[in-house]
């Protein structure tokens, strides 16, 4: 456990010294991932402009309801994770475990809907090689869902750790939460770009 983070977790939020929650290394990983996805977003818009009609016609084949439900699922799972970290800091491990389970269920729901969406697309004959739109759609959402899967692994790890956790162990949970929130925020931009922007 990093000493600075331990101090942050043990002091009331109102009087916090300016300290980064969790481990610095996780934040470097998150920033790196966000820079890569930032480039993905700009690349998508650039190539969309080259074939706007094709992208709009292809986008109309996506199910926006799946996209919006998945956004709400990840937002809700992030909310549960924030409250789980608050519960760990207060020593309320049972509550934290329940919240982590709920967050996991939302994340698993996201993967379930994504699987359903991919299956429908494959049945309609739409794949990575159909056209440029579907190449970006499958590539970006595929890389993102891989992040969701890693995030679910992190949540399982945290659920395993929670029984013996003390408030001083909060940085471990803060680090896991930081990664999970990143998974959420990347989807927050992927959803409008792929499903809504015309």
């Amino acid at each position, binding site marked *: 456990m990093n000493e600075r983070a331990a101090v942050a977790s043990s002091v009331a939020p109102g009087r916090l010294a300016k300290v980064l929650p969790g481990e610095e290394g996780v934040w470097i990983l998150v920033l790196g991932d966000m820079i890569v996805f930032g480039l993905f977003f700009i690349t998508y818009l650039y190539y969309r402009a080259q074939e706007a009609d094709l992208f709009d016609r292809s986008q109309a084949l996506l199910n926006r309801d799946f996209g919006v439900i998945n956004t709400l699922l990840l937002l809700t799972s*992030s909310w549960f994770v924030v*409250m789980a970290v608050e519960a760990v800091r207060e020593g309320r491990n049972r509550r934290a475990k329940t919240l982590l389970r709920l967050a996991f269920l939302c994340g698993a729901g996201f993967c379930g809907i994504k699987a359903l969406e991919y299956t429908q697309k494959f049945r309609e004959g739409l794949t990575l090689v159909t056209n440029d739109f579907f190449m970006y759609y499958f590539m970006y959402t595929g890389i993102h869902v891989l992040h969701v899967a890693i995030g679910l692994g992190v949540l399982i790890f945290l659920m395993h750790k929670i029984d013996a956790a003390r408030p001083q162990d909060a940085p471990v949970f803060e680090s896991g939460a930081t990664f999970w929130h990143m998974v*959420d925020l990347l989807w927050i931009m992927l*959803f409008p770009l792929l499903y809504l922007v015309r």
Partner: protein
Amino acid sequence: MEWLIRSKATPIWALLFAATCMSWALGTCRAARSGVSLELASIAVMLIAMIKIRFVLIHFMELKHAPWIWRGLFEAWVACVSIALVTTYLLI
């Protein structure tokens, strides 16, 4: 369940939930029928998404309590990516 209402994250989650529904409405045919141009609706959904991302960074990820350098790096990401997205959408 009082703690659920008391949590500082709850109003932020409600706001993010509402913003998602607003983007959905803007991005679907409802916007077209209400006379909002597609370009304006598209820029609006991208900017709403970026505001939501900033809320997640500042409130859920607690960057509001982080050293200025860390907060600055992520605020810079939000600003740079927002400008690049709108510019790419409008100019290319």
